[in-house]
């Protein structure tokens, strides 16, 4: 594939999105199957209530280390969470790859625009949750 060809940008971005969606979808299916197998005939009543001290369900740990432990223990909720994190990461990966695709086209203006979008996005995802007063 010749990355200098503007047509290739559509193909590459389309592929990044498609593979991201398929991979996260398969992992969520795996987790959901496990969930139904283990808790499928439990009542949802206790699950759908929002208890700020015990969210998300089963009080699973959403930090990276907690997620890894849950995955190793084959917790259905942790596997679903992994799929959801990958789904959220897909648009970020798309922006990241666009920076390189515009660079291959030698379009400096759009390399700059896309790099700024990526910086804003990473700041928003990684930094703002820990700034006091943001989204209280």
């Amino acid at each position, binding site marked *: 594939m010749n990355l200098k060809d503007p047509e290739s940008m*559509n*193909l590459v*971005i*389309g592929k990044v*999105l*498609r593979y*991201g*969606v398929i991979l996260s*979808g398969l992992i*969520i*299916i795996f*987790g*959901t199957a496990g*969930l*139904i197998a283990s*808790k*499928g*005939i*439990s*009542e*949802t*009543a206790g*699950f*759908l*209530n*929002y208890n700020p001290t015990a*969210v*998300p*369900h089963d009080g*699973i740990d*959403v930090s990276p280390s907690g997620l890894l432990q849950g995955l190793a223990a084959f917790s*259905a*909720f942790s596997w679903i*969470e992994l*799929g*959801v*994190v990958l*789904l*959220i990461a*897909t*648009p*970020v990966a*798309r922006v990241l790859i*666009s920076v390189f695709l515009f660079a291959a086209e030698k379009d400096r*203006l*759009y390399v700059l*625009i*896309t790099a*700024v*979008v990526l910086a*804003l*996005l990473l700041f*928003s*995802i990684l930094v*703002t*949750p820990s700034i006091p*007063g*943001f*989204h*209280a």
Partner: protein
Amino acid sequence: MLIVEFVLLMFFVSIFAGIFGSIVGLGGGIVVIPVLTILLGVDIHFAIGASIVAIIGTSSGAASTYVKDKVTNLRVGMFLELASASGAIIGAALAAYTNSAALEIIFGCILLISLGPMLMKLGEDIPKSPELKGLSKRLGLKGSYTETDGRIINYNSTRPMEGLAGTVVAGVLSGLLGIGGGAFKVLSMDLAMKLPMKVSTTTSNFMIGVTAAASAGIYLARGDVDPLIVAPVALGILVGAALGARILLRSRNTSIRKAFAVVLAIAAVEMILSALGVLP
């Protein structure tokens, strides 16, 4: 209700949301949120967490098809993402200091008002293409795509700064409320930048995933993205978005505009009713 029943119900509801969301350029939250809160009594925090994931799923699921078929305008999308990503951060910063009910009423009314110009051009197939000049020319905000009947449509855009301003509003709304960004994005591209309807809705669809991802960190960290609620929503949305993308590529601009006008009216009313406390 049993967990297996909940999963199946939300899966099918979300397929429907994904089809609609991907065609009109919104995230499907306007379907998913009321079903979860009103019908199932799920807390609004969980519903918004599910809506964020639904928006990202609709976006990536349909965009892979739209981008490959070159309906989405990548440069318009990337340029406007500057505004939506900044807006999302501004919205998150404002959340602690603003009365979200008042904002919802204001934004809901803006959406209702923008129904006017939208209805005026209900029969418009392809807009009269403006001359490409100034910043739009510098940014290369033009494109072409193939219509359902085989016509190749070449189009230019205009008023990029107005498009940018409208998209900042979209980003602020997403950052503040987690919802409502798509409508302002489509309106910015359609009413200000004069892009063909399909290009506006698919480019909005392309962008909403990035805007929602910008806010996702906060919702994930707070535990609002609940695996049980989100799993069937994500899976249904992905199936629906894939179906919706195929439908859009075979639809006429006039039909898409009519569908968007209906959804716009519903979104505006939902927003106002929720601010007034009639809806959760």
